[in-house]
């Protein structure tokens, strides 16, 4: 009977405190390492170091990769040279790089000093790629075959390289220059005759990623072609590494979080809400708040220009919030829909015209409905208004929805055209722009049609 095994936190803490070595080892054999790592977050450094001493080295290394960055850093700082060395021997190079990337340089050097020569070369190579590129995501531990290999030879290679490889489902075939020439699924090797030659069995239409590809591009390629593993090549088509689909899943969660934050006018933070400290949190939020607050000077100016109208027709001020929030909401509905489509590569710059036409049609329908309902609303809730006032306010809503939807649809595409991030640029600005437009429409209509 399958069970979701749940560790008892108290038991775990008690065993660690009592230093029951064999029980602790059994615990780590029995329970899921990720659940255990979560519990280890609450241990103090001393207990954690004890744990690493008693655990089997490969289990210790696995535990290490699943700890939070802060804990990892504490552990590495406390580790002696030989301890680091043993840890490194049991880690995949891409996991090491992911960790080193964030470290202050003195600690990074400390780690690199204890790496074996091969490993150091791997790590340095991976570190040389820009952050968030395919090169920095890939692992260099994969199975590589020669085109002239027989099936028997290939299986031997899989067995040799497979122990350290991150995946063996797909093997990649290179020529004498290490250029990628084909790929083959492990099952096609396993189920073939021993004397068949790999070259005759392999697929030659291989989809490959470039080391310089952005991680978003990587994710989109995986989605489009439905692969579990993709090879990564450099500009000369030399095979450099592979990326597995589970890494892409992490990228997707990351990118979505980033997009949501950008849409909400937050500069993306690295950690989650709980892990981000107050200073970082403030930094990520303050910039846009200041920019938007200062740019609200425009709306202030507009209102200042119409101060007289505001004083003589008090009903105007009362509807101000309603007009502004409707404009803002309508604009962000359009912009966010378009932003998301751009991120998923469903909408391109060439669709500009289509988007505009669509938004205007939508705005016409929505504007009309809101116009009617708003006239009714004002007549019921504000019977003291003259009919002119009701009509001006409702007409403003209609025009504003048109403007807001058009701006909302257009701005993300403009950002794309000038090679800016649509989510970061367009979304926060929409409200301010649309607010200013709404106020201009509002007061112009009011002055023209309402007798003072």
């Amino acid at each position, binding site marked *: 009977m399958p069970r979701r095994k749940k560790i008892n936190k108290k038991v775990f803490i008690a065993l660690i405190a009592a230093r029951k070595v064999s029980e602790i080892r059994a615990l780590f054999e029995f329970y899921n390492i990720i659940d255990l790592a979560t519990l280890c977050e609450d241990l103090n450094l001393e207990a954690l170091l004890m744990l690493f001493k008693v655990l089997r080295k490969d289990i210790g290394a696995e535990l290490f990769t699943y700890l939070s960055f802060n804990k990892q850093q504490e552990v590495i700082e406390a580790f002696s040279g030989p301890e680091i060395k043993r840890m490194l021997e049991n880690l995949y190079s891409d996991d090491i790089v992911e960790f080193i990337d964030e470290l202050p340089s003195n600690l990074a050097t400390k780690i690199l000093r204890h790496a074996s020569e091969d490993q150091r070369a791997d790590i340095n190579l991976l570190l040389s790629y820009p952050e968030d590129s395919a090169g920095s995501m890939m692992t260099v531990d994969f199975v590589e075959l020669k085109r002239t290999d027989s099936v028997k030879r290939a299986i031997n290679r899989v067995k040799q390289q497979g122990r350290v490889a991150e995946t063996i489902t797909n093997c990649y075939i290179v020529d004498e220059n290490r250029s990628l020439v084909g790929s083959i699924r492990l099952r096609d090797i396993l189920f073939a005759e021993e004397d068949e030659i790999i070259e005759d069995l392999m697929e030659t239409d291989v989809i490959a990623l470039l080391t310089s590809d952005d991680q978003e591009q990587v994710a989109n390629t995986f989605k489009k072609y439905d692969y579990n593993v993709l090879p990564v090549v450099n500009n000369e088509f030399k095979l450099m590494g592979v990326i597995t689909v589970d890494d892409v899943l992490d990228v997707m969660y990351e990118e979505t979080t980033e997009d949501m934050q950008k849409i909400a006018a937050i500069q993306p933070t690295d950690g*989650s809400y*709980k892990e981000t400290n107050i200073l970082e949190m403030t930094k990520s939020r303050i910039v846009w708040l200041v920019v938007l607050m200062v740019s609200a000077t425009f709306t202030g100016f507009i209102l200042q220009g119409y101060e007289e109208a505001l004083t003589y027709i008090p009903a105007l001020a009362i509807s101000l919030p309603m007009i502004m929030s409707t404009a803002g909401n309508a604009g962000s509905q359009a912009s966010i829909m378009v932003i998301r489509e751009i991120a*998923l590569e469903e909408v391109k710059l060439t669709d500009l015209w289509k988007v505009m036409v669509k938004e205007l049609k939508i705005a016409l329908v*929505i504007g009309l409905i809101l116009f009617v309902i708003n006239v009714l609303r004002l007549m019921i809730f504000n019977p003291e208004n003259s009919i002119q006032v009701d009509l001006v306010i409702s007409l403003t809503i209609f025009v504003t929805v048109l403007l807001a939807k058009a701006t909302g649809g257009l701005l993300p595409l403009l950002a794309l055209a000038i090679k800016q991030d649509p989510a970061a640029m367009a979304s926060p600005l929409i409200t301010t722009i649309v607010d200013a437009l709404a106020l201009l429409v509002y007061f112009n209509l009011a002055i023209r049609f309402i007798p003072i």
Partner: protein
Amino acid sequence: VSNLFDTYKDLVFSLELKEYKKIRSFFDETNIVDAAALVDPLPTEALLHLFKIIRKELGAELLTYLDPTTVERLTSHLQPETLHKLLEELYSDDLNEILSELPDELVMKVLNSASPELRSEINQFLSYEPNSCGSIMSTDIITLRHNYTVEQAMRAIQRQGRVAETINWCYVIDDKRRLIGVIELKDVLFAADDLSIRDLMDTDVQYVYTQDDQEEAAKLISRYDITAIPVIDRSHAIVGIITVDDILDVVEEEATEDIHKMAAITPLEDSYLKTDIKTIVKSRLPWLLILMISATLTGSVISSNRDLLVILPSLAIFIPMLMDTAGNAGSQAAAMVIRGIIIDDMGLKDALSIIYKELSVSILMGLILFVINTLRIGLFMPDVGWWIAFMVSFTVLIVITLANLVGGLLPLIAVWLKLDPAAMAAPLITTLVDALALIAYFAIATQFLRLI
């Protein structure tokens, strides 16, 4: 890409000229996803012709990548025998996906042309709730009996492996097909022939039930960093598997839904460009209406402070700025907490730490905004006067604090009420925060007038 159009013309031409060899070699050399994009626009007659002459495996593979409308054209015109042969070649989860896109009468046609076994499998699938794990799983899995030796296991893998969705993971079952463990292909491959599977398997296996929501599978796969998760029925028998590549689509769909909900849009089924105007209007109108009418609340705050506006007309000038800043701050906090709820399982238990964090962030941000805003008004709007500038900036500080608290706590309240935090909290925040901002503004202004 430039010769893609030529390739399409070639394809049509070759079909007319019955150059079958050329067509076959074209499909052998071209990636299936790209090939499907060329097949989609073919007229129905050419489409049927094509499916008659290509290999059945290729046809089945093509079927999974074609546009649903193309599949519809095919299924409605294909001979039942040809259809039957195509269906037999499909992986069960692909078949299920194709069926879920087809109109009912064509599903009946497919069912009629399927073999009895396939028919019962399809019927089983159709009985799962949409978006449940059962509905997206594949039934092509590798199962090993617990009493197998490594040698027997290898033979079982070879037998089942040709059609299995993945061979990386083999699931170990007892005599009643109940899931009791998992073993990686690597570990079978590299083990001595006479070892027993029972001793090699890992009993710590994550799984989902057929009736679980697909999001549950996505969560477990990403949390436990695995590439596939087995699906079991109520009697704990293993019935299928969900692999990471299936989950990518789920994660993306859910993310789009959440982003839309946060922008006060009811989620759409299809992509923006493919959705008609009526559906988009329906998805955007409800919230716009609700928010517009609830803005009556903010209006009434202004209306009950009308006297104040008469005494101090320049108060109105800052209403938009205050509302915008409050709205922005509130949605920043909400966006972070909503994402935290989705990804990190934050909940009511975190209320205190959220309050603490938001308060600290608010004080820091509020002070910065206070200084900048006082300078901004004092320098850019000299006729307003420093006293008012001071008073408005003080309001900003208070408003930021209120907005951050509401933004941080409202999603939690939604969770507590068992409502969707993205759908409920995000759109409401602006309205609530707007009203709060104005109430605070007028209260502070009243006190302030008394002082001077």
